[in-house]
């Protein structure tokens, strides 16, 4: 345990000290001396962000279910706290037992976004754990990674001992069982890693060698230990009704990003938007039954006291029994003043019934994501919505009393022209015209439409994985084009920093060579790169320059269709052939239907069972 007297003095010197105290409702604190597997769940961002992440709540409770295991949490301390910890020599510790993470058997990082990678390095360093896996000894914890970014783990291959690819509910227990067996037989860490590399979904990077072509692309990636699988297949839970789901949630004392019950209604998505990694890697779609969800909601309401149930999934309006589910939830909880919310709404499946039910308790803001400004480009990315959908939906929403709408777009999508970019403006103006076309006496509130543009980042396992990203200059030109053309106080234009998206693109499709740049950037002070006020682009460029790495090779380069990718060793379900087919169709502006309406041949049903594919 860390020195609690010094800890308390430090708490008096930092902002939001409650980030570091733990003790929340539903926290589980065990006697560490009586535990076989001590697992530290590490979220490489601050408490306020990490505690809003649903996966944390699932795995925290799942691991703690086992009496021989414990799961404790650790987050990246904010910069003020880090400074104090370094000054007072407080090693990075978990919130439950205030135990240094170095004393755990596993430190499991969740990789939710690429821009958190330097925080991982920083957390290891704060925990007095060597950064590179080769420098760690038998006494150091095993560093494990999971989450969506492990679908290309290669930029972190030299740091992590192992990755879990896919959904963690089952595979973690299997890993723990091997660990306990190895501990009993006094096996070495390497022996343990070899044993787990046989488990489906586990990837141990050091057991694979990468060979490169002269142009820097990958020639081959092969196991260097006999018999280890050449391909790593992702893990999924085939039946969500039968899989573990936590009945309790940690309830933070401080206001965090999402202070609410997150009720996961299904995994996967059938829409097939071509830019969307989540829509590909989480296939097949698997729904939880309404009955299960109602039961779970009851437990969660009882154990948290929250007044908001948010229905979580990649596209919640697609839940097949949505209207019934919402009606039942509202009937059950409106007396207790507990509301139901949907985090995102699709323009084409937004129905009056759903929204009227939600409105009964309270009115939330309306957010839609047309993603692209023109119909042509929306067809390229296979975002099925039309302008008519938008017109119909906002007209209805304004009549019902809404007055603020947010629209999300991307710029830099493949084949984009200036006409497409200006389409973003046109849609914003159209929404404004719709509002003011309603008779004055029927309009409510103070109208604004926020038009937000992010810069497109091509991701692995999407039909756009071959695409070169727009240059920073090109992004800036498009942003200026919109800035110059949107001249209306009621239409607010926001945009993301292209430099940040450029770096995200480097890390998203990077290979093992990028790892050194990550460490170098961290050494020069980079951390919290996702926080625009702390992001230091120049330091990153210096790091690449120093190591003679060309970031454009990863971000801007258009790949040939036969290139071997760093992530090709992963079997994510969707086949490379399907992705190629989708890429070709995109260029021809051809749509692919929602696969609930009929299989589109992505390949996931060949390797995985469960959900709508059955």
């Amino acid at each position: 345990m860390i020195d609690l007297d010094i800890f308390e003095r430090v708490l008096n010197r930092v902002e939001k000290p409650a980030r570091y105290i733990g003790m929340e409702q539903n926290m589980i604190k065990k006697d560490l001396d009586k535990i076989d597997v001590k697992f530290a769940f590490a979220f490489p961002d601050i408490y306020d962000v990490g505690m809003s992440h649903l996966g944390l709540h699932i795995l925290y409770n799942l691991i703690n279910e086992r009496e021989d295991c414990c799961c404790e949490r650790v987050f990246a301390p904010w910069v003020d706290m880090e400074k104090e910890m370094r000054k007072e020599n407080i090693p990075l510790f978990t919130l439950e037992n205030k135990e240094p993470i170095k004393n755990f058997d596993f430190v499991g990082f969740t990789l939710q976004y690429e821009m958190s990678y330097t925080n991982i390095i920083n957390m290891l360093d704060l925990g007095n754990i060597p950064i590179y896996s080769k420098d760690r000894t038998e006494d150091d914890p095993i560093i494990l990674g999971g989450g969506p970014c492990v679908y290309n783990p290669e930029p972190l291959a030299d740091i992590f001992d192992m990755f879990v690819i896919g959904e963690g509910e089952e595979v973690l227990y299997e890993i723990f069982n091997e660990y306990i067996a190895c501990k009993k037989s006094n096996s070495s860490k390497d022996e343990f890693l070899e044993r787990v590399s046989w488990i489906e979904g586990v990837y141990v990077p050091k057991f694979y060698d990468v060979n490169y072509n002269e142009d820097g692309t990958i020639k081959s990636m092969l196991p260097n230990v006999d018999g280890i699988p050449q391909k790593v297949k992702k893990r999924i839970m085939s039946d969500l009704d039968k899989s573990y789901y936590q009945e309790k949630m940690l309830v933070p004392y401080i206001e965090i990003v999402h202070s609410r019950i997150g009720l996961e209604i299904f995994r996967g998505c059938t829409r097939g938007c071509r830019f969307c990694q989540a829509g590909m890697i989480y296939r097949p779609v698997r729904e939880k039954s309404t009955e299960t969800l109602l039961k779970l909601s009851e437990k969660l309401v009882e154990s948290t006291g929250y007044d908001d149930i948010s229905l979580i999934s990649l596209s919640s309006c697609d839940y097949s029994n949505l209207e019934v589910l919402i009606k039942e939830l509202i009937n059950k909880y409106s007396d207790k003043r507990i509301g139901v919310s949907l985090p995102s709404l699709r323009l084409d499946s937004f129905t009056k019934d759903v929204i009227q039910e939600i409105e009964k308790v309270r009115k939330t803001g309306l957010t839609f994501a047309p993603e692209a400004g023109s119909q042509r480009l929306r067809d390229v990315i296979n975002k099925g919505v039309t302008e008519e959908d938008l017109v119909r939906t906002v007209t209805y929403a304004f009549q019902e009393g809404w007055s603020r709408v947010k629209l999300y777009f991307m710029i830099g999508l493949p084949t984009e022209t200036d006409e497409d970019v200006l389409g973003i403006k046109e849609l914003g103006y159209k929404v404004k015209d719709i509002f003011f076309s309603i008779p004055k006496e029927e309009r409510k509130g103070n109208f604004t439409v926020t038009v937000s543009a992010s810069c497109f980042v091509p991701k692995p396992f999407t039909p756009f994985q071959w695409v070169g990203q727009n240059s920073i200059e090109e992004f800036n030109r498009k942003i200026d084009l919109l800035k110059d053309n949107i001249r209306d106080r009621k239409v607010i234009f926001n945009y993301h920093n292209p430099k940040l998206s450029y770096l995200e693109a480097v890390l998203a499709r990077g290979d093992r060579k990028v790892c050194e740049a990550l460490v170098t950037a961290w050494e020069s002070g980079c951390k919290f790169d996702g926080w625009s006020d702390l992001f230091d682009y120049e330091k990153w460029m210096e790091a690449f320059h120093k190591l003679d790495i060309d970031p454009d090779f990863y971000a801007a380069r258009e790949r040939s269709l036969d290139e071997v990718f760093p992530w090709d060793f992963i079997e994510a379900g969707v086949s490379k052939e399907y992705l190629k087919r989708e890429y070709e169709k995109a260029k021809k502006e051809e749509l692919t239907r929602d696969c609930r309406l009929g299989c589109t041949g992505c390949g996931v049903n060949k390797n995985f069972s469960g959900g709508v594919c059955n």
Partner: protein
Amino acid sequence: MQLILRVKFTKESYLKYISHLDTMRFFQRMFRMADIPIAYSEGFNPHPKFSIASALSLGISSEGEYMDIELEKSIPVETFIDNMNGVLPDNVRILDGKYTDDDSSISSLIKWGYYNIQFEIDNEKMTQEKLEEIMKAFLSEENIVIKKEKRKRKKIIEREVNIKPQIGNVILKGIYNNIVKLNVLLKTGDSGNLKPTDFLKGLVEYTSLIIIDDSIKIHRIDLYTEEQNRIVSPL
């Protein structure tokens, strides 16, 4: 007829790092979990009707907090206490409660706060006797003027305030290993409020004591109202 339940509660250990606003949100969840039939305000965004007597600054623990809760229907006080303590964490406890027909709000009733203050000093060879002298001299000052900062929009306005009239009884509990313990009674509430940290500011300003900032621990023992010039419990 309004049903107002007035209760006394604690907020201790690390939960002193929960801000007043977060404490309000925390109680909202706790009332819901404990199935308390709390009354809600009317209007577009209804909120539960309860108010805490005196906002506790971040970092101060307490065993004497008070709040008024308006209920929709009457429940026995014991039921309220049992149900709440059933869901509350160990470091927040409901100690006592009663229905009140008091017209004045709990926050307007509070006049005094009684604190235990502990801090480390950086003065060499400090003894109990010396410290007693220092405290005696300090308390016999006619005026104790400190600078208070007030935020007005973006500007910070400094003004001088005489805090002497806001200091009540001060008891030196002792000094051990250069750790000083005091019990102090300070004006608290809408009609004059002296923060314990401002009291310490005066102490540093007017005496030779060198207080180590991050060693300060403040604990509120209780809050009081006044009845015929006597200090009494608000419950």
